[in-house]
């Protein structure tokens, strides 16, 4: 099949479906023998992405596939089309979600350890109902607590392809360095040079 035709069908499919479609799903639109190879689909997707230059829509890849979406610059204006405001999520919910996203698989108790407060069951329910988290197993400790992890929908919703695309991975690494420094240098350093330590590290901690 000619790339132009393939590209048009893919654009039609993505706009009609309104949700991400994987390369495999796009291939399955076609019956044999005209079913294109994955490489041909990818080539057409690349051409389509180029076509979107200068248009108010863009083609993005997220965890479950490719999605046509209206560019971010229009969102404020277009939000007027809906009566309802987009949901705002509480800090408690976002912190819980962040812990699950970065530390998965994780138990509630482990979330509580870091946050210093008990996990509100409503938050876990909301996140589950939203389809962002799910139980991925149980930890082999007494009580067999549930291990929570994020879903593909979570990545889709936040426009990510993989968990690696989550922000601030570097910050996590820096924190480890800080911990080591604190441990290895011992309290003497902390005590003797309270003003000396911060400069570099503080920036990390704050940044």
């Amino acid at each position: 099949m000619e790339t132009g035709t393939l590209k048009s069908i893919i654009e039609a499919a993505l706009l009609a479906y309104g949700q991400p479609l994987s390369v495999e799903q796009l291939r399955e639109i076609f019956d044999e023998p005209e079913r294109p190879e994955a490489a041909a689909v990818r080539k057409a997707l690349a051409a389509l992405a180029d076509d979107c230059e200068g248009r108010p829509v863009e083609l993005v890849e997220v965890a479950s596939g490719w999605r046509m979406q209206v560019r971010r610059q229009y969102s404020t204006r277009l939000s007027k089309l809906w009566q309802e405001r987009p949901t705002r999520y509480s800090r408690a919910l976002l912190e819980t979600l962040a812990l699950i996203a970065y530390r998965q698989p994780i138990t509630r108790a482990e979330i509580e350890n870091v946050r210093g407060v008990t996990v509100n069951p409503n938050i876990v329910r909301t996140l589950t109902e939203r389809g962002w988290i799910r139980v991925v197993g149980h930890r082999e400790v007494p009580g067999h607590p549930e291990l929570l992890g994020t879903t593909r929908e979570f990545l889709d919703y936040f426009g990510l392809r993989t968990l690696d695309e989550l922000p601030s991975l570097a910050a996590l690494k820096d924190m480890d360095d800080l911990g080591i420094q604190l441990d290895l240098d011992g309290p003497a350093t902390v005590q003797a040079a309270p003003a000396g330590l911060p400069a570099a590290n503080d920036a990390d901690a704050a940044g």
Partner: protein
Amino acid sequence: MSESADIEARNGSEAAASELPPQQAEMPFAIVDGEPVTEVPRDLYIPPQALEVFLEAFEGPLDLLLYLIRRQNLDILDIPIADITRQYMEYIQLMQELDLELAGEYLLMAAMLAEIKSRMLLPRMSEGGEEEEDPRAELVRRLQEYERFKRAAEDIDGLPRLDRDVYPAVAELTHRQVVRLLPEVALQEMLVAFKDVVQRATMFAHLHVQRDTLSVRQRMSDVLAILEGVGLVEFIRLFRPEEGRLGVTVTFVAILELLREQLVEIVQAEPYQPLHVRRVEATADAATVEAIEITSA
């Protein structure tokens, strides 16, 4: 949310500063840091009416502590523990005075701070001659860890989110047909079903050895006897599966014979409803014809 609380706290403190004298520090700061602390932060007092809002803005004791530290641009690695403890306790006391429901975690943290504070005052040499870890180390680790995820939560909140920052582009697809896929069956599944059903039939067969002696005529009489004077009998009630295949066949053929001879009729309220059998008392009516059609279809 925390921003607005922040503003309120600041406004409140300005108002309060003129009314309240600076509080006397209960601990000399010099012991902790090795140098005198000249300034007692006074801007952390919050008027009671703002307190509830303020406290709701915190996600727990770690969040509150972080606020106290960041508020004063203090170094998280070198927290003036006595000062922070005093400030923290002021909130706890206020919360208690106001009868606000105080989460247990806040009190736990208060105890932890008090313990750290007392350990800071002791000479830090263990019997082995090795220096003990800074009493604040564990707290610092927890604060760092919490702050890391507090920031990660903000980062996640800042990601372009569907239905808030980007909208999926959708165009109408007209003349859409729903393609219904047919269920898949594995050969093995059918084989298991077959074994199952054969096994059941075999079990029935074992129970009745004398099935060969049954005759259609005899069974016709039996059926008529069952129907005598009882009105409607459900069709399948005339069958006894435990008689096995032949027995059921005989009953079935017997009923067919009875139908043919217009001695019984089969009635059905609606399509796919259970069939019922009854004796024909008077002349045959249309129902009989219908019934024959149903059974032979």
